[in-house]
């Protein structure tokens, strides 16, 4: 499981207004996605290095999510480098076509994914879930003109963020319980594997919805007032 916990600290990024931080994350993501040449890559690299230094986070923690993406990134690069065919192949064999354009495209996608992953990692590790909720609520505030219930949306996001580790544990518990009953999720034919996923997924949904039901009862009992009843 990917470690997505807040890292206590006293850096500029830890103290920064969560709304500014959230907007900054969105702007940096857009800058990275539109930069497709060497200058853009250098700007993104400088931006990320500066943010890592400002966050004072351990490098290992910042780069941790990349470990789980390693094979995915290699696969994406190879698919673009080997199969992108725009006519100017340097080497071709059957459907394989190695071209400058393909290598460039693969390189860009991999670089963008790495950059955005690191940015998200810095954001998650320097912002508590309550601050994330406040950041989202303030960022979405202009949408209130269109009667969009931004307060409810930020509440939903905040509850969702708190549910994620709980659901991870629930699914792990259900998986272990099913293994103890003889289920095998990693072996057998594809049909056997599909059959084995039902006893995992259905209890996971029941457990998740039961938790949601209990929480909604608790919220109502505390007199929760929705933002706009128009969202009904």
């Amino acid at each position: 499981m990917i470690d997505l916990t807040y890292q206590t600290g006293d850096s500029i990024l830890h103290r920064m207004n969560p709304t500014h931080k959230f907007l900054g994350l969105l702007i940096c993501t857009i800058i990275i996605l539109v930069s497709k040449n060497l200058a853009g890559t250098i700007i993104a690299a400088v931006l990320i290095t500066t943010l890592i230094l400002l966050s004072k986070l351990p490098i290992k923690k910042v780069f941790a999510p990349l470990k789980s993406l390693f094979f995915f990134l290699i696969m994406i690069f190879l698919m673009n480098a080997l199969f992108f065919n725009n006519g100017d192949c340097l080497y071709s064999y059957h459907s394989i076509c190695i071209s400058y354009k393909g290598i460039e495209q693969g390189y860009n996608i991999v670089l963008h994914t790495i950059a955005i992953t690191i940015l998200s990692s810095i954001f998650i590790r320097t912002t508590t879930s309550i601050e994330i909720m406040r950041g989202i609520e303030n960022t979405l505030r202009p949408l209130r003109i269109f009667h969009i219930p931004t307060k409810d949306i930020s509440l939903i996001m905040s509850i969702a963020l708190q549910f994620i580790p709980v659901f991870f544990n629930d699914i792990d518990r259900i998986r272990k319980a099913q293994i103890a009953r003889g289920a095998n999720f990693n072996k057998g034919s594809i049909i056997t594997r599909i059959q084995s996923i039902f006893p995992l997924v259905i209890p996971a949904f029941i457990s998740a919805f039961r938790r949601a039901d209990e929480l909604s009862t608790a919220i109502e009992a505390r007199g929760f007032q929705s933002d706009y009843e128009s969202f009904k």
Partner: protein
Amino acid sequence: MFEMPYTKKTVITAACIALCAVLPMAFHAFPNAGDIWLPMHIPVLLCGLICGPKFGVLCGIMGPFLSSILTQMPPAANLPSMILELSCYGFVSGFVITRIKTGKQITDILISLVCAMIAGRIVYGIANAAIFNIGRFTLNGWLVSSFVTSLPGIVFQMILIPLIITALQRALIIPDKY
């Protein structure tokens, strides 16, 4: 859509958004699970069916967004088209089930699912062909990725979603439609 208090719909939507991030991890045992089994589609379709079209759209937007930030699935490059596809699933499944009344809940759910799956895939195709992958997105590619590669996922969802709704009703978590 099932008659429930507003707060309950709010929290169920939050649970479905969280499941959008958690469920793909549970499918890790299967190779290429994201494209074949479509685990992220299940909570969005369920949210639309149970809470209605507006909550379905919200789940379709926030689910992949949150999952992409936290687990990098889907990758940022695929995120905009996926958000459009999933929000369409959430909207259409919720919209159709509120309008359709055959007298049998299972029929209502299956019709809503089929409509949502077709509409979502059309939106995904149009979005890629006209906005995100101009010139690189082909009709054959769309047909293969939307209906051939994901066929096991479509069948899986058509079986699983009615089963989950029935199980939730038996557990008295959501009410009966009729």
